């Protein structure tokens, strides 16, 4: 029998997806399934936090372009 998993399908630019992977790598608590280079499924309960972290990440990158990722 197939399995149905609840979640949120996120479709985005590959560069944005790479950042989501990086955020998830810290505690593996966002991504349900990595589908392809522009598509993934994330936990619905974590969507708001993910968006916030993405925005933080993007503003950090802009302020410190050559910083050797100390996070």
């Amino acid at each position, binding site marked *: *029998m*197939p*399995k*149905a*998993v*609840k*979640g*949120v*399908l*996120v*479709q*985005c*630019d590959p*560069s*944005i997806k790479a950042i989501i992977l990086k955020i998830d790598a810290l505690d593996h608590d966002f991504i*349900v*399934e990595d*589908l*392809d280079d522009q*598509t993934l*499924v994330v936990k*619905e309960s974590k*969507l708001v936090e993910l*968006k916030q972290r*993405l*925005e933080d990440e*993007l503003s950090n990158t*802009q302020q410190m372009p050559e910083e050797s990722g100390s996070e």
Partner: protein
Amino acid sequence: VVDQIRLWQIEGERMKATGGFLFKDFVTAEEYDNLANYADEVGVLVWRSDKRRMFFVTRHEQIAAYLRNRPKKLT
């Protein structure tokens, strides 16, 4: 039931988020094809990968009913 599509504008990049259900772990290509095509017909399919035998739908009620009501195969 969450049935919504949100668009985020992040640094000029567009990001689309759709609530729903990911179907996976199909044993046969035939079972995958049947169900993915049914999902498409009833208009709930938003993403599919034939290679990985997975698809994403906005609602699962019709899919569940379809699975319950389809004739049992003889084994």
